[in-house]
C-alpha cells in the first residue's frame, strides 16, 4: 500500500482542528469587545460586556454554583473512583465484568444521563414515588425541586457518570505500583490500611492530580447534563456558566455579553490548566535531572 505523504497525514488535520479552535476562540474574544446583539457587529466597547456580565445576578449565582458543583463533583468522584479501584484491586472474581459495568456510564451521553436522572429524581415518578408505593409513605426525596439541594442532584448524576472513569485511571495506577514494594511493606510489618496509606497512595498521587484536573475541566464545561436534568432551575438554583453563555447568546440575543461570559469561562479553565501544565513541566525537568 502506498503511504500518504506525512504532510497530508499530520499537517492537514492538525491545521484544520487547531485552526478551528484558534479561529473561533479569536472570533469569540473579538465579539466580546463589540456591541453585538442579535447579529455580530463591529465596533469597540472595551470591557463593557465584561463588567455587565460580571454584574448580573445570573453570572454570580452561576459562578458560585460552579465552585460548589466543581468542588463537590471533583472531590467526591475521585473518592468514589478510588474506593471502587481499591475494591476492584483485591483480585476479585469477575473483575473485567465489573470494570466494564462501572465504565459504561462514561459511554452514555450527558443528555441521556441528565434525562434518566431527572426521571429518577422526579418526586412524582421516580425514587420517591417508588418508596411511597412500596408503603413508606413519609419518604421524601425531592432535591430536584428544592432550591438549596438541587445543585447536589447535578453532583450526584455527574458522579454516577464520571466515577468509573476515575476508577479506571486509578486502578491502572494501583496496578502499576511495583509488587515488591507491597511485599517489602508486608515484611516491614505494615497492615493493609497502612500499606495503602503510606506506600500505595503516595505512589499514586501524580495520577490523582491528573484525575482531579481532568474532572475539574469537565466541571467547568458542564452544560448538557444540567440542561437535561434541571434546565438550570428551580429558578437559578443550578445555573452554571455554560448555561449563562447559552442564555445570553441564543435566548436573549446578546452575542457580545455571551462572548464575554464564554471568555471568562476560558480564563477559568486556563486558571486550572496552566498551573497543571507548569507542574507537569517542573516534574519532567526534575525527572530529567534525576
Amino acid at each position, binding site marked *: 500500500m502506498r503511504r500518504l505523504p506525512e504532510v497530508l497525514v499530520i499537517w492537514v488535520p492538525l491545521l484544520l482542528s487547531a485552526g478551528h479552535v484558534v479561529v473561533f476562540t479569536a472570533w469569540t474574544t473579538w465579539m466580546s469587545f463589540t456591541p453585538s446583539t442579535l447579529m455580530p457587529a463591529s465596533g469597540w466597547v472595551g470591557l463593557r460586556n465584561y463588567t455587565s456580565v460580571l454584574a448580573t445576578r445570573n453570572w454570580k449565582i452561576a459562578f458560585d454554583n460552579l465552585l460548589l458543583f466543581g468542588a463537590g463533583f471533583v472531590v467526591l468522584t475521585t473518592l468514589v473512583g478510588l474506593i471502587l479501584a481499591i475494591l476492584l484491586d483485591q483480585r476479585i472474581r469477575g473483575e473485567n465484568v465489573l470494570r466494564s459495568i462501572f465504565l459504561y456510564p462514561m459511554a452514555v451521553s450527558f443528555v441521556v444521563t441528565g434525562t434518566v436522572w431527572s426521571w429518577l429524581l422526579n418526586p412524582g415518578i421516580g425514587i420517591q414515588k417508588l418508596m411511597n408505593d412500596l408503603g413508606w409513605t413519609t419518604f421524601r426525596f425531592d432535591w430536584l425541586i428544592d432550591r438549596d439541594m438541587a445543585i447536589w442532584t447535578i453532583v450526584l448524576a455527574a458522579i454516577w457518570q464520571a466515577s468509573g472513569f476515575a476508577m479506571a485511571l486509578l486502578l491502572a495506577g494501583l496496578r502499576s505500583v511495583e509488587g515488591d514494594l507491597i*511485599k517489602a511493606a508486608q515484611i*516491614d*510489618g505494615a*497492615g493493609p490500611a497502612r500499606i495503602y496509606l*503510606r506506600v500505595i497512595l503516595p505512589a499514586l498521587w501524580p495520577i490523582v492530580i491528573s484525575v482531579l484536573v481532568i474532572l475539574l475541566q469537565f466541571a467547568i464545561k458542564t452544560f448538557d447534563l444540567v440542561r437535561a436534568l434541571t434546565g438550570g432551575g428551580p429558578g437559578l438554583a443550578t445555573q452554571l456558566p455554560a448555561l449563562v453563555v447559552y442564555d445570553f447568546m441564543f435566548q436573549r440575543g446578546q452575542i457580545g455579553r455571551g462572548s464575554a461570559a464564554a471568555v471568562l469561562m476560558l480564563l477559568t479553565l486556563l486558571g486550572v490548566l496552566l498551573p497543571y501544565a507548569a507542574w507537569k513541566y517542573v516534574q519532567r525537568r526534575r525527572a530529567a535531572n534525576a
Partner: protein
Amino acid sequence: MAALVIRDVNKRFGPVDVLQGINLEIGSGEFTVLVGPSGCGKSTLLNIIAGLEKQTSGSVEIDGRAVNDVPPRDRDIAMVFQSYALYPSMTVRQNITFGMECRNVPRAERDAAVARVSHLLQIEPLLNRKPGQLSGGQRQRVAMGRALVRDPKLFLFDEPLSNLDAKLRVEMRMEIKQLHQRIHSTMVYVTHDQIEAMTMATRIAVMHHGLVQQFADPETVYNRPANLFVARFMGAPPMNTLPARLVAAGSGVNAVVGTGDEQVVLPLPPEMAGFAGREVILGLRPECIAEERRRFGEDVEPLMVEAPVVMTEPTGAETVVLLVLGGERVLGRLSPDVRLRPGERGRFSLDMRRACLFDPKTETLIG
C-alpha cells in the same frame, strides 16, 4: 542449631509443580545461596520462606519455630529485593525506619538504629534524600540498610545485585560477603549467577525443575557435582562432558573417547578401576586442560594429548581454547602467552585426577 528448616515443601501453580519436595536445613550463621536458571523455583522458595507465598504442602521452621501460618511481619526476617523496593515517597531515613514505625518502636531507639546502620553502610549523607535522587549503588545500600536495621533472625536476598552494572556488582558482592563475616547472621541469597554463588556462599543449593539438585559447600559443588546439570551449570566456562567407554588397563582403567582415527585414550586415577567396562559420561573442568608445559603438581606426571584447535577466546588473564578431543568439542584454559591459531594442532597437558564420571542414563555422579 538450625536457623531454617525446610521440610518437604511443594508448591503448585495450577497444573505446574514449581517446587517438588524441597528439603533444606540451614545452620545458624550460614550464608546459603539458592542458585539455578530462571524458572527453577528459587524465588518462589524464597517467597515461601518469607511468608509472601503459601506452600501447597510441607513446613518451614525459622529458629526452631514452625511458621507455616505466621504472616511475614511476625517471622522476624528481613528481605532485600532485586528492584530494591524502596518506598519512593519516603526519605532514606523513613525507608529505613518504616518497619520500626509499624512496630511502634520509640523514636530514640529508631534514631539510634538509623545511626548505627547508616554508619555501617556509609550512607549518612543520604539520609534525607528520596530514593529517586540516588544512584543504583546507593539504592542498593539503602535497601541493605532497611534489612540490617531490623537485626532479624534471617536475611533473605532476592537477586539483589542483578540490576547493577558489572563493576558495581563485584564491589557489592565483596561488601555483602564482608558484611556477613562481620555480623554472622543467617542469610539466604537467591541468584541465577553461579559466580555470585561460588564466591559468597558457605553452602550452595543448586536448583533445577523445582528440585534441589545438590546442596553442598562451593568446593564440593564445583569439584564433585552431583549430576550433569550441576556440572554444566556451575563454572564458567562450564565443565566438559564427553561420552566415554571405560577399558581396564593393567591394574588401572582408561577412558576411551571417540572411535577410529579420532580415538583418544585417557588414563583415569586408579581408584576408578572398579568402573572398567562401563559406558560413562566423563566430566573434565576446562582448567584441567592446559598448554603443553603446564604441570598440575610436582609429582604428577601430566597426560599429553594432541588435538586440533577450533577457536580461541583471549580474555586477558587466560585464553579459552575450543578444541576437538575424540570427536567431541571441549574447552581448555590456557596461559595467555600461548598463541594457537584455529586449524592448528596443539599439544595439551591434561589433569585427569579431577575427572568426574557420570552415569549416562541417570546423569548422576558415580565416581
